[in-house]
């Protein structure tokens, strides 16, 4: 369906190409009331894909020792890791919103030479292996990095701090927010902005009163995606921030450590907690989105 494809936040190319207002596109896609139906052969690979995604989750749930489960997830290390993960992910999403909303608006509402190249570069963390993102951050903000000396003069040391965890998470999660919001902005079009401006609203008023309210669902999706990405962040964090209980050891790092340190039971238990948190976030976002 071209309609949903154009709203796919991971495919900006589509939304760039298709700038017709949403209603026009829907009409073209739906056709004159004909039920197209699905090709039957589609079901087999779709079902296989579903099994492929769900079976590992089932395997993990089966692996849990339910008797020990409460003790495992309430251990000091687990609670510290969960608290740290939630705190840093919230902080990182706030940073993503502050920087990402303006970025998405600029990318969606302007048209200049080299814009697509700029977009690709800005969204690069999306395709970079997280370890590479961590190294890039290290070479920028690390003690011997590009800005290391400046930070040192200011008395700031980022490595091995919780702030470094938040930075690593923001870095990898930002593109998720930008890309979904940009898609939403392009789908929404400029018609209402133009009307508001014609009626005498200043750009700032249009932005807050028209543009943003129109794309709130897309913004929420983007924020949820970014939050989920932050919760799962591992490679950039371990490379840039390190791993110390209560300071930089987030859930994924604690899980990896449990697993590497021959305590797979704790690793599985904590993984389930992470899955539950992710499902909760998605659920809350869906409820919030349909309420919008």
């Amino acid at each position, binding site marked *: 369906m071209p309609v*949903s494809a154009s*709203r*796919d*936040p*991971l495919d900006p190319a589509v939304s760039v190409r298709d700038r017709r207002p949403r209603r026009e596109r829907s009409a073209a896609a739906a056709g004159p009331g004909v039920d197209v139906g699905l090709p039957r052969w589609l079901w087999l690979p779709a079902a296989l894909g579903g099994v492929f995604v769900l079976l590992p989750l089932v395997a993990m749930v089966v692996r849990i020792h339910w008797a020990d489960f409460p003790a495992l997830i309430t251990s000091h290390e687990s609670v510290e890791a969960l608290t740290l993960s939630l705190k840093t992910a919230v902080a990182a999403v706030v940073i993503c919103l502050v920087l990402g909303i303006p970025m998405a608006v600029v990318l969606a509402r302007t048209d200049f030479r080299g814009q697509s190249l700029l977009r690709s570069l800005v969204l690069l963390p*999306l*395709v*970079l*292996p*997280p*370890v*590479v993102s961590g190294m890039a951050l*290290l070479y920028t903000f*690390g*003690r*011997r990095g590009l800005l290391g000396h400046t930070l040192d003069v200011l008395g700031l040391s980022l*490595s*091995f701090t919780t702030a470094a965890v938040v930075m690593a998470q923001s870095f990898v999660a930002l593109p*998720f927010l930008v890309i*979904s919001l940009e898609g939403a902005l392009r789908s929404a079009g400029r018609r209402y902005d133009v009307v508001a401006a014609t009626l005498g609203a200043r750009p700032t008023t249009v932005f807050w009163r028209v543009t943003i309210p129109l794309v709130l*669902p897309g913004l*929420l*999706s983007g924020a*949820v*995606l970014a939050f*989920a*990405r932050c919760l*799962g962040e*591992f*490679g950039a964090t*371990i*490379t840039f921030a*390190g*791993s*110390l*209980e209560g300071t*930089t*050891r987030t859930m994924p*790092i604690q899980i*990896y*450590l*449990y*697993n*590497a*340190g*021959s*305590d*797979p039971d704790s690793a599985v238990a904590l993984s389930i907690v992470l899955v539950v948190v992710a499902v909760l976030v*998605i659920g809350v*976002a*869906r409820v919030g*989105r*349909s309420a919008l």
Partner: protein
Amino acid sequence: MKKSLVRPLFAALAAATLLPLSACGSSDDSASGGSDTTTLTVFAAASLTDTFTEIKKEFEAAHPGVDVKLDFDGSSTLVSQIQGGAPADVFASADTANMDKLTQDGSAQAPKDFATNVLEIATPPDNPAHITSFADLGKSGVKVVVCAPEVPCGAATQQMEQKTGVTIKPVSEEQSVTDVLGKITSGEADAGLVYVTDVTSAGDQVKGVPFPQSSKVVNTYPIATLKDAKNADLAEQFVDFVLGSDGQKVLKNAGFGQP
């Protein structure tokens, strides 16, 4: 409207899960041999990467038609892979605890010790915090990175702290020696505790600071053939080769001690 949230979530979750995988890549560096080659799969602790790659070359030169496939990872990871049915012929562990897990459940037979390793302090080449002794690691303001107690090098670190009475307050507890070295080579940390062989293989990237108490905690490396080995004879020959003069020479050059 509802569905449009689920779709991007799935897409992004797929991206998020696939991306880290691409970082791992494939560690299979063996050339695909002809039909007349015999393949021997060796699982070895990550700290043996350089030495076993060297030993593999020598073993292959001495045994034409044999293709040795090496898989390096943390010892405990390799143990769970072997227990999960991974097709390995030989296992070389970085500590006895992990080998014991395999002998207890019968998957490994008669392990033999083939090397020892001790801890050494690693600092950036310019040694910014002027570390000269193990006690220096306990000073406040020194950014020390160690292995987490859950992994073998971290356990060794803890023992060393107990034996020397020095308490280290690390800025980070990493999950492997490699991660500790990474923090040193990037200059983020002032000092780290790794194995003496890691300092040797890191070359100019780090400066090693030996300390006399290091001999108090000695890590022993055992090697064994596995019960499910496809080619038990060849597996046995590889173990003998590691224990023999050729293998021992390679290990000694890398800084390993003899058991």
